[in-house]
């Protein structure tokens, strides 16, 4: 009934070309076009996100941020329109800079690391459903694909850290590897809840399952949503979990020895990864492109597709904004606290989330609950969890002073 949702963006191009010229495009052409489109999307979205990050930071710190680049009139209009061309100018500057490869580096991994991190990012974007019937390819292992491919990011960071042959880079790489390996586990376990509810792994099916349940998966698996969000901040190495690149201790961590274009690629991947984790969260937990209070049509309509894309970007941008807000509000976490949080709190809670989701899925099958019923069950189970956490005494992490 909703099969059209699972079409891919490539299918639309193929269809359009065949109808207008009568010529059947070969599959590899479509593939290359789609990859180029994602790459373009990643570059543009990173530029926008970097600009947004600087403006949000400025607003939170009572500054105005970059104002000088761009027409004077824009800057006079408001702080949000001033300096719109700043990141574009920064990108051009980075592109024109000389590539410096320090003489003591291990050249092959040093050059391969930034290339790998961008490749991984582009590959992971393949399954993101930007709108109904508009993902690049709706693989039937969607969620696992994103998680598996993103797990290679840590490899590139380890390569950069090692091959730079500098103590700051090495320490940054080590810290990052430890952090990402530990936080990958609660991240995957938090995603297991919605996977269980949806009974499938494909991203578009995930959205359709939320239509079938009548509520966003953030409700039955609220715990999972929060765990996923915290763990994904740690996955993309953003403050307050930015220990791998803590400026005051490690200069710039694993990117210390990079300059010009190669540095820009790390930067680009960081922001693209932020968009990626937020779009996965929006799809899996917040209903993706589903327009609230509007039924999904049986046949594709251009209006719904455009509206769906807008809704998807609104949800994702909101999550991205919260990440920026968190960055400029909380101080950096200490390494041992970080490990404690990941292993002793998030991981057991994600198991609890899995149990709740299994219960909700069974209740839905047995009693044929609608959206309101599932919401009620979820709220009750969450209250029980809060009660349970009150009863169980959770040891607080000790400070260095107490340990001494």
């Amino acid at each position, binding site marked *: 009934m909703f099969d059209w949702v699972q079409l891919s963006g490539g299918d639309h191009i193929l269809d359009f070309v065949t109808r207008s010229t009568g010529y059947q495009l070969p599959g590899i052409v479509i593939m290359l076009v789609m990859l180029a489109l994602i790459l373009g999307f990643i570059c543009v979205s990173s530029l926008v996100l970097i600009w947004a990050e600087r403006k949000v930071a400025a607003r939170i710190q009572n500054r105005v941020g970059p104002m000088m680049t761009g027409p004077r009139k824009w800057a006079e209009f408001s702080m949000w329109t001033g300096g719109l061309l700043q990141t574009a100018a920064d990108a051009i500057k980075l592109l024109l800079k000389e590539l410096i490869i320090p003489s003591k580096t291990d050249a092959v991994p040093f050059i391969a690391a930034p290339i790998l991190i961008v490749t991984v990012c582009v590959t992971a974007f393949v399954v993101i459903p930007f709108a109904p019937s508009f993902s690049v390819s709706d693989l*039937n292992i969607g969620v696992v694909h994103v998680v598996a491919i993103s797990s290679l990011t840590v490899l590139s960071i380890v390569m950069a850290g090692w091959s730079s042959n500098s103590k700051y880079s090495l320490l940054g790489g080590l810290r990052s590897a430890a952090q990402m*390996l530990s936080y990958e586990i609660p991240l995957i376990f938090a995603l297991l809840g919605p996977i269980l509810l949806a009974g499938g792994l494909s991203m578009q099916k995930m959205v359709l399952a939320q239509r079938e349940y009548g509520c966003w998966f953030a409700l039955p698996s609220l715990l999972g949503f929060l765990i996923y969000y915290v763990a994904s901040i740690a996955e993309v190495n953003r403050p307050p979990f930015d220990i791998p690149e803590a400026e005051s201790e490690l200069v710039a961590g694993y990117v210390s020895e990079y300059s010009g274009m190669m540095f820009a690629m790390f930067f680009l991947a960081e922001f693209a990864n932020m968009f990626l984790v937020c779009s996965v969260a929006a799809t899996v937990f917040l209903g993706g492109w589903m327009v609230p209070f509007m039924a999904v049509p049986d046949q594709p309509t251009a209006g719904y597709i455009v509206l769906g894309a807008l809704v998807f970007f609104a949800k994702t941008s909101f999550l991205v904004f919260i990440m920026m807000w968190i960055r400029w509000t909380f101080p950096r976490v200490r390494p041992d606290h970080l490990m404690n949080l990941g292993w002793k709190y998030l991981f057991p809670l994600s198991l609890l989330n899995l149990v709740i989701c299994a219960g909700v899925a069974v209740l839905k099958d047995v009693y044929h609950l609608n959206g309101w019923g599932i919401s009620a069950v979820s709220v009750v189970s969450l209250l029980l969890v809060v009660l349970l956490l009150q009863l169980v005494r959770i040891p607080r992490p000790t400070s260095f002073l107490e340990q001494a």
Partner: protein
Amino acid sequence: MSEAIAFYLLSAMVLTSAWSVVRNENLFHAGLSLIVCFVGVAGIYVNLDAPFLGAMQVLIYAGAIAVLLLFGFMLTHDLMKVKQERNQHAAGIFGALLMASLLIGVILNAQWFPASGQLVKFGVESLASRYMKQDLVSFEVVAVLLLASLIGAVVIARKEEGGRE
């Protein structure tokens, strides 16, 4: 046709990187080659229409195990002075022959082309029902084994009671 091309490219990738794992004197480069090898094997799985297996190969082997290996290298003191030693040719050849005979035995005895209509649909669902129905006991035994090794690792890594390092 395109599947055959992909297969040969991936096989070349796996074989050359596996050769590099064994022959490279720089341990870090050998570790990186191992990851290339794992990713190539994942590509072969995807080519064989088993994308879930491929994703798991990338997630577990390339993304976790190999990275832990590199992590170990990075913590090793003066790694660049350590050269990979290759003085176990006899054992290596013996192991390779054993593995080859095993594989050849399996290949010769396997039923390659089942009659039409007998092809098993292979997917995540069939994998799940296999684990949760037919092979539940062996699945649970493996789970208990993994749990035991996990607890063992904690016991070994734990600090002594009272004494602080």
